């Protein structure tokens, strides 16, 4: 999210979103953040035998690491990337 702040928001973001219901692409992770999160993701994925699921039907993923990921992204008030693991989630899309 720091990356986004440094790259200022597109001026048409809100108007485009309101008119069309979506907006993309928006850069949010710099290379260092991305690599760290990819490493963390695969570490968890491999440790859990190729799944991020803790319940649900095939491919219906409850998200045990989502909260920590959110924190790692700086999207919550939890601060900068630290530990990845644990968290909460749901089974929606």
């Amino acid at each position: 999210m720091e990356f986004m702040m440094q790259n200022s928001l597109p001026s048409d973001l809100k108007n485009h979103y309101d008119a069309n219901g979506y907006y993309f692409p928006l850069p949010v992770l710099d290379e260092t953040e991305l690599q760290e999160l990819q490493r963390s993701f695969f570490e968890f994925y491999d440790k859990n035998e190729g799944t991020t699921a803790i319940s649900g039907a095939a491919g219906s993923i409850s998200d045990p690491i989502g909260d920590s990921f959110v924190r790692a992204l700086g999207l919550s008030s939890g601060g900068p990337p630290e530990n990845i693991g644990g968290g909460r989630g749901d089974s929606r899309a």
Partner: protein
Amino acid sequence: MAAVEAILGHDLLIWGSRWFTKMPGDTTYISWHQDATYWALNPPQVTTAWVALSESGPENGCMRVLPGSHKGGLMPQIDTYAADNALSRGQEIAAEVDESEALDLVLRPGEMSLHHIGIVHGSQVNHSLKPRIGIAIRYITPAVVQETHEKPVAVLAQGLDTYGNFELLPPPDDSGIDLQEIQSTAARRMMKSILPGKRN
């Protein structure tokens, strides 16, 4: 967060998050649907940030949207419980969707898209040799109410919550709080609120 703030305003809650992972050979897909149909969140001050950790394009099953469909109201939806459908109920719009109108939200690693709770969206199978990995983070304003018997939970992302419509969970930190317990509570309440027959 700045992009989400530009759309929803300064006061923001995180209602949930979910990984969407399609590895090569994975046969899962996501049928056309509208989140608003089954999330029971009103008013629709809800946006999803979909953050890509891998390339996400048509060849590996990126998210697709029908632009402007959030303005058309809710379409009828059926629960199929299809085995390879990654949605919790296999929910699917019960009407013909004109796929020629669909737009691929192509993302590079480290980029995100935002989409409205009412937009028609879905994704196809990963037909490539590349993984497709992303996480969806659901943001809402504190003014949103979720119709559920048990008080729903959320995390304050920034600003203030003067409404009290959600039980605010502590943000993840390293204080030693049992995250698995918090996760279990949150997941149970959410599943009760969105799955049929689990409202009570």
